């Protein structure tokens, strides 16, 4: 894929610069997340019941996405609602309540109790309590009075292709026993739809909510022995999208629901005409604006309250005032302390005065009173105090503390041999030695610092010299160091990532070390006899703890270093290397305009993770063609079945030549999942490709892929063949609940 695209992107490095770019672009079109499909209270239409007679059938298209029901004389179904039932015990009123269809979406409580009548992902009824709820709702809404304790009308109901006997049996039981239906018939929805569109021989491709079925029909009779079902429909598509979005935005703050996923599939997905080509260019920048769909979930932006100029000034004034007060207080405290210190100093000076000329004993007594050991200590105390008082005074007056040259202390005692000193002298000598070594160490450090500075300056000078003399070589070395740094940064990132993974080499080494450290008696040591393992004798032994410490805390400073160094090297390269531009820096490489993942997650615009609005957005892009593609390539979603084209082509290939021609002349699409834009074209083109060249093929879509099943059923319920297919109550009682009369629009009886 080589599409050269041009974008107007000036070297963008910071998000501030990119957000400024937004102003010339118009704001993107945003779709909003839909609310639960609650329709409010709808009064039951009752006039239908009065119009009906004992022979008027109640027609129910029992679909897994929407149940549709009406009278056989209706042109369109009167009722249409999802097969959801919320039946629970209301704690407040202590009674059982039951809400059916859209009513079950009335509020959060009812939505929480939602149960679907069908087994998930199939058109087979799985929850019969919910099914009874649906039937109740249908009969109530149709205004059936039930004067004689039953519905009193024949019931025509659709069922799935090759319905399970148990399922039909249970349905019959409910219809006959609970609702006392006089007679019941079943048929297949897609055959009804085909009948309504006046088809007689052809291939029905019905892609509905729970499955996709291919049914060949010859002269109005379905060839049941060669029907086929692909377990993929609108439900699975929505579920797949739901999964993909959950993986795409694992920390999405909004609540994504399945009815929303269904809506997105309906609204935004389409069948790609050339999936591979379109997919590989889907996230390219050209036109991504149009391909990317944004769905906004409700959010609350943290609005910073705008303060007026006046208010701001007032706040600043208040702050200043507070600061001033604090300063004053601090000054006062300082002054108080100073005064106290001065008083103390005065006292000690006085003490010093008093000591002069006293006897030794008296001196000792005076000193002891103030807890001094000897005169020297007193002197030192006075000296220290003088210093601190001076300092404080200077600070108060704002005079900079001029660093007076510290006089080099002398250590006279050190030169006198030990034997010439008494006990106190020895003590003092020791003290002086300590002091001296401290002073010397400081001096040494100072010199070393000087040297280091000189060395760095020298290095810098040499480096500059080298740059001037041999620019190419210098640049080469810089590039090399940049590469090493890059590698180091990558390694560090990998290591960090690896630490989280128990199976990584780094983790395993760490585990090994830990185990070694934890074991009390390593066998090797024991054999040698000694208990002591000499740990710590070598300085490097302690490095073990560095290894054991988990990542973060240990190499924090190093990390800073690497990034800073990188910046430094890159700055140098930028300055001197003509071939190195802004766009090659690491920061620019991380730029979102180059990132495929950014295009995938956030579309063609910058993303501000602080903005509540943007974090509450879903971007649908590749999903728009990825989800419907599963029908053509089920392997994408891990479905181990052949795609719709293969299945249809196999079926056509297996039939006899004359049958094949009549089937090919009418390929009929029905069901809500065929409504994707481009579905018919794609199917037609791909079928064409696998069919013999001379075969003529015609493909058409039902006039209304959603409602034609019901309409066909209603139409049939007025025909004479319907009367023959009805199983009456007497027949039910005599022949059992799994008794079925076969007809051309329904299933065959299982053995």
């Amino acid at each position, binding site marked *: 894929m080589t599409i050269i695209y041009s974008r107007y992107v000036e070297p963008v490095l910071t998000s501030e610069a990119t957000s400024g770019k937004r102003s010339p672009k118009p704001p993107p079109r945003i779709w909003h997340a839909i609310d639960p499909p609650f329709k*409010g*209270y709808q009064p039951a239409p009752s006039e239908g019941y009065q119009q009906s007679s004992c022979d008027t059938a109640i027609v129910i298209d029992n679909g897994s996405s929407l149940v549709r029901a009406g009278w056989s004389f209706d042109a369109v179904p009167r009722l249409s609602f999802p097969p959801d039932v919320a039946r629970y015990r209301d704690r407040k009123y202590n009674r059982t*309540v*039951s*809400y*059916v269809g859209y009513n079950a979406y*009335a509020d*959060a409580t009812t939505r929480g109790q939602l149960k679907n009548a069908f*087994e998930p992902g199939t058109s*087979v009824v799985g929850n*019969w309590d919910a099914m009874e*709820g649906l039937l109740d*709702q249908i*009969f*109530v809404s149709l205004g*059936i*009075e*039930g*004067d004689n*304790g*039953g*519905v009193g009308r024949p019931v025509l109901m659709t069922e*799935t*292709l*090759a319905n*399970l006997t*148990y399922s039909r049996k*249970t349905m019959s039981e409910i219809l006959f*026993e*609970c*609702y*006392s239906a006089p007679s019941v018939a079943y048929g297949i929805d897609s055959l009804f739809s085909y009948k309504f569109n006046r088809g007689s021989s052809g291939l029905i491709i019905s892609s509905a909510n729970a499955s996709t079925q*291919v049914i060949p029909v010859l002269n109005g009779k379905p060839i049941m*022995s060669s029907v*086929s*079902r692909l377990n993929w429909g609108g439900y699975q598509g929505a579920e797949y999208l739901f*999964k993909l979005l959950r*993986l795409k935005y*694992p920390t999405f703050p909004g609540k994504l629901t399945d009815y929303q996923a269904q809506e997105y599939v309906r609204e935004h997905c389409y069948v790609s005409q050339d999936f591979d080509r379109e*997919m*590989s260019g*889907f*996230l390219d920048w050209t036109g991504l604006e149009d391909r990317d769909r944004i769905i906004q979930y409700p959010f609350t932006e943290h609005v910073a309250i705008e303060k007026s100029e006046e208010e701001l000034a007032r706040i600043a004034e208040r702050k200043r005032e507070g600061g001033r007060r604090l300063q004053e207080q601090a000054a006062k405290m300082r002054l108080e302390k100073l005064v106290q210190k001065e008083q103390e100093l005065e006292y000690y000076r006085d003490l010093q005065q008093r000591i002069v000329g006293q006897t030794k004993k008296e001196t000792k007594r005076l000193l002891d009173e103030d807890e001094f050991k000897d005169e020297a200590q007193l002197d030192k105390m006075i000296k220290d105090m003088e210093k601190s008082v001076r300092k404080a005074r200077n600070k108060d007056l704002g005079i900079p503390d001029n660093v007076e040259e510290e006089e080099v202390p002398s250590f006279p005692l050190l030169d006198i041999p030990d034997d010439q000193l008494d006990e106190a002298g020895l003590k003092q000598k020791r003290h002086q030695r300590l002091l001296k070594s401290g002073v010397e160490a400081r001096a040494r450090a100072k010199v070393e610092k000087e040297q280091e500075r000189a060395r760095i300056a020298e290095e810098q000078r040499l480096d500059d010299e080298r740059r001037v003399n041999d620019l190419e070589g210098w640049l080469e070395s810089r590039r090399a160091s940049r590469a090493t740094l890059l590698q180091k940064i990558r390694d560090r990132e990998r290591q960090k*990532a690896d630490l*989280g*993974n128990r199976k990584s080499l780094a983790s395993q080494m760490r585990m090994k070390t830990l185990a070694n450290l934890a074991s009390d008696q390593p066998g090797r040591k024991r054999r040698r006899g000694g208990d002591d393992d000499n740990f710590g004798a070598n300085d490097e032994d302690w490095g073990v703890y560095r290894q054991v410490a988990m990542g973060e805390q240990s190499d924090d400073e190093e990390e800073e270093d690497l990034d800073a160094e990188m910046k430094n090297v890159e700055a140098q390269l930028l300055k001197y290397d003509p071939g190195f531009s802004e766009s090659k820096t690491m920061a620019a490489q991380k730029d979102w305009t180059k990132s*495929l*993942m950014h295009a995938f997650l956030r579309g063609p615009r910058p993303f501000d993770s602080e903005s509540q609005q943007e974090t509450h957005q879903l971007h649908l892009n*590749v*999903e728009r063609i*990825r989800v419907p593609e599963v029908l053509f*390539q089920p*392997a994408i979603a*891990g479905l181990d079945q*052949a*795609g719709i084209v*293969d299945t249809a082509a196999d079926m056509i290939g297996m039939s006899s030549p004359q049958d094949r021609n009549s089937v090919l002349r009418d390929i009929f699409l029905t069901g809500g999942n065929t409504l994707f834009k481009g579905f018919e074209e794609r199917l037609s083109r791909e079928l064409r490709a696998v069919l013999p060249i001379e075969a003529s093929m015609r493909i058409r879509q039902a006039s209304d892929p959603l409602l034609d099943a019901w309409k066909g059923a209603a139409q049939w319920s007025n025909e004479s063949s319907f009367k023959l297919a009805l199983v009456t109550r007497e027949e039910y009682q005599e022949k059992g609940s799994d008794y079925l009369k076969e007809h051309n629009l329904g299933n*065959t009886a*299982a*053995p």
Partner: protein
Amino acid sequence: MAPTTPAADDSHQQLLDQLDLILKPRAFRNTRWKPSQRRNKNIKQIVAEAARKEASVMATQDNSGSSTPNIQSSAIETGAATPIHMNGASTKSTISQAAQNLSTMVLERNLQASLSTGPIATYTNIESAPSLHPAHQKHYCDITGLPAPYMDPKSRLRYHNKEVFDVVRSMNQGTAEKYLEARGAHIVLK
């Protein structure tokens, strides 16, 4: 949820009462209808039960043929055996025999029917077969859905390019497994 005022609460309750199906008269329902508690079954259960039932019917058919000395009704009809004439007393046993023979007849007829028209379409056997077409072995990136020339041997995820690979490598085991699950390639522990 925002706190609702009592008045609003009341109107909502009225709406709920309007919607509530239990409060509506449903005279068409049989008041003595007591459904079985265990009628909700999933497809797996139903299919397993059906298979078990079929197997047991087959078994009884075989047994009845070998253990009961009675001559099968069909054999009588076809003239393969002479009918035995029972005298008087045991009418009860004839009825049971007749019932048994009826079920055998039905089974035989069904067997013949299935032999003549081929296998009957059942819910399980109409599933379309796996595809063996090489064109459908294409690989797509598990994360972005773009064509995927590479596979990460560690997580077994397919990926589109270097950048996606970085993402793959930075994700933890659970996430990778979820991606695999979306493609149906995850490991199922049984």
